[in-house]
């Protein structure tokens, strides 16, 4: 018998507000959290804007020791996981820790801390043979990204498979997808799954400047992230985390929990085309969508909402529009498709998980989040992007897609049949 995978807890750290209530309020209001960078002085950079989290680790219960030991992106994940576990009602020790896993994605891991300490040990880029005596404590925990999943697993006493996933900007979808597969295959009953990134640092801003991937709209940051709009000019970097509790459906029912929804299908493919470039046709993303739908045994015409990758680069949005049309056919024109990156920016590896969190809430609450800043249609992007204003709708079948550097294309299908609204 096929094992089904339920979502029973959600936690979010996003720009514009930490925690699910603030996140949902922002999405449904269509507010944007993009602004001038404050985490460092961005003078001299091409793109000087980002969607930053106003995050006070101490206010969310992290001790000074935890803060010293954990990078910002790990702190985000711990806080999001705390909220998700609380929300799920799982009691520590009440389930088999060896049948509980962690699968968390990150694209760039500890680069912010790595850069911070690099500046000290190199004398601001003076020397190649950097001075190890000037390195700060816990630097090794910035070096290896496996710290992310490890830190969350330690926090909750997990003893099953614990894995960090790092497929660039599809990390979040893939980490959730892998957890879904592991539960489905009876390797575990419960997974803490999601993703986190805190990439807003000089080196990451500079590397996207170098390929003109980010928006230079520094004079109007709150309107700079414009997915699908004819005047879009690149993505706006973001940061944040989302963590879900995934649980085998009968396991959730046995403890009397009414799930938000189910993860029903997942697939990922490479485009083998270009590390950063995308084709106009979107064949491989379309193949990911088709395969995920097939896995979920859901017909494309039953999709009620598409949560887009919608990064706001010229090529991404037309690539993705083509892919969705290829998979959904005429139904694509009747299906709302929005990008929350218009509001919370593009937090690289984290965003896929934040988007799945948004889908989870959208299904449970019957509301489609909008694409903020959408004003001027682009002839190549001719679907219903839910401009500016959230929309009420009954959502039973939802698709979330992502594209990442490396050519990776991923799709997650979610479904909800009845259940309590939350």
């Amino acid at each position: 018998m096929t094992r089904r995978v339920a979502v029973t807890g959600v936690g979010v750290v996003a720009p514009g507000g930490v925690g699910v209530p603030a996140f949902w309020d922002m999405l449904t209001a269509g507010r944007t959290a993009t602004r001038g960078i404050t985490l460092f002085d961005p003078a001299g950079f091409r793109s000087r804007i980002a969607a930053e989290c106003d995050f006070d680790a101490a206010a969310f219960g992290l001790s000074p020791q935890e803060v010293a030991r954990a990078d910002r992106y790990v702190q985000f994940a711990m806080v999001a996981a705390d909220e998700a576990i609380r929300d799920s009602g799982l009691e520590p020790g009440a389930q088999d820790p060896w049948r509980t896993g962690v699968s968390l994605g990150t694209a760039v891991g500890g680069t912010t801390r790595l850069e911070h300490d690099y500046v000290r040990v190199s004398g601001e880029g003076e020397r190649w043979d950097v001075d190890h005596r000037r390195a700060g404590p816990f630097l090794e925990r910035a070096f290896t990204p496996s710290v992310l999943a490890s830190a969350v697993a330690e926090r909750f006493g997990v003893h099953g498979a614990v894995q960090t996933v790092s497929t660039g900007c599809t990390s979040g979808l893939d980490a959730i997808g892998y957890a879904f597969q592991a539960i489905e295959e009876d390797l575990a009953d419960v997974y803490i799954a999601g993703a986190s990134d805190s990439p807003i640092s000089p080196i990451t801003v500079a590397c996207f400047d170098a390929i003109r991937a980010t928006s230079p709209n520094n004079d109007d940051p709150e309107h700079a992230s414009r997915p699908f709009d004819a005047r879009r000019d690149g993505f706006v970097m973001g940061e944040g985390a989302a963590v879900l509790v995934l649980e085998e459906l009968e396991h959730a029912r046995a403890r009397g929990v009414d799930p938000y929804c189910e993860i029903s299908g997942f697939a990922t493919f490479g485009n083998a085309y270009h590390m950063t470039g995308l084709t106009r046709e979107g064949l491989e993303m379309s193949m990911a969508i088709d395969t995920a739908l097939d896995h979920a045994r859901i017909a494309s015409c039953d999709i009620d909402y598409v949560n887009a990758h919608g990064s706001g680069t010229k090529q991404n949005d037309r690539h993705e529009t083509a892919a969705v049309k290829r998979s959904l056919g005429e139904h694509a024109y009747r299906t709302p498709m929005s990008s929350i990156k218009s509001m919370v920016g593009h937090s690289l590896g984290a965003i896929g998980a934040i988007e799945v969190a948004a889908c989870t809430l959208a299904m449970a609450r019957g509301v489609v989040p909008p694409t903020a800043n959408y004003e001027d249609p682009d002839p190549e992007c001719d679907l219903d992007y839910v401009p500016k204003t959230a929309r009420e709708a009954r959502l039973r079948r939802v698709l979330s897609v992502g594209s990442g550097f490396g050519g990776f294309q991923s799709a997650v299908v979610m479904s909800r049949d009845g259940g309590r609204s939350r």
Partner: protein
Amino acid sequence: MNIPAAERRTVITGLGIIAPNGMGTDAFWKATREGVSVLDRITREGCDGYPLRVAGEVRAFDPGVMVEERFLVQTDRFSHFAMAAADLALQNAQLRTEEMPAHRVGVVTAAGSGGGEFGQRELQRLWGKGPSYVGPYQSIAWFYAASTGQISIRGGFKGPCGVVASDEAGGLDAFAHAARSIRNGADAVVVGATEAPLAPYSMVCQLGYPELSRSEDPERAYLPFTAEACGFVPAEGGAMLVVEEEAAARARGAPVRAVVLGHGATFTRSSRWDRSREGLARAIGAALERSGCAPNEIDVVFADALGTVEADRAEALALADVLGPRAARVPVTAPKAGFGRAYGGAAALDVAAAVLALEHGTVPPTPRVTDVCHDLDLVTCRPRGVELRTALVLSRGLMGSNAALVLRRPEGEI
């Protein structure tokens, strides 16, 4: 091949090895079989001023010979290794991927630290000169997914692409991941891990690991399972392998080298090596169960061999817990004592070594180790000829992961 997922078995058909003790299968096996140690003082530029003196360097590697210039300039040394190793593996498997549907060939790598040398160079440009000096490839060279992406693009492989980052143990998890891709419909996956952690800033980052060997003597720096164990020696390099769906591999007459039977993974906290006893034992138990294999079928163990007394003891006890009284008679080995631990690459190299051991009926020795202080049959000094059918490969990550993988010689070929 429309075979039910449960019956789609994963077999290894190609090995691509870039190791400190040899590049390519023949050179690697010769050095490994003979127990040669290549651990030495570190010579990479700018790396000689740290309290980390000894490592396993891949000195014979000339990237320009193996990888096209346009891919070299876009990538870090860890991806150079990965692309070269993938080529070797594909040649070894004689896999004509251009004749296969592109979406049925996938790529999975494990990554422990990404493109550190490339990243340091770009950080130096940014902080020494200014933001506009950062080059266009920083965005695709430093991140952990670089090798998977480049192998996919360079080979035209459009199947499932994955990157796991559970440090050393990730090297085994990658094989579980590839086997899942095969079950779900891929016909072939290029899978493994390569690392290049020997750049100055990467070395500084590793100095925080309490398990790191700070010995200055290459002969004594990495002596797992001895009373003198003083930590592990890092290394660069690794292995990429070709795995295929068994029926597809046999249909094309491919050389089936080994069957990937089962994998298990657990977590027992970072730096809590005492707890890894239970963690490893449970990972082994899960791997055996999924393999449909009894503990007494294990013929050889490729140990994690971290090289601290506490971690080695936990591993020896875990084997005793699983194998019972037979544990003292099952040959255990750790070839990596001769070339170091290349993080995720170490586990991938162990898989390659296990395949070669099964083929040759030979357990390679643990270089430089003589006086074993734990209760296990560690193969030392010289290779041991013995009929081998089933191998167990173990790996632990510094952040707390434990993994086990069971490999078997293909049926009818003993």
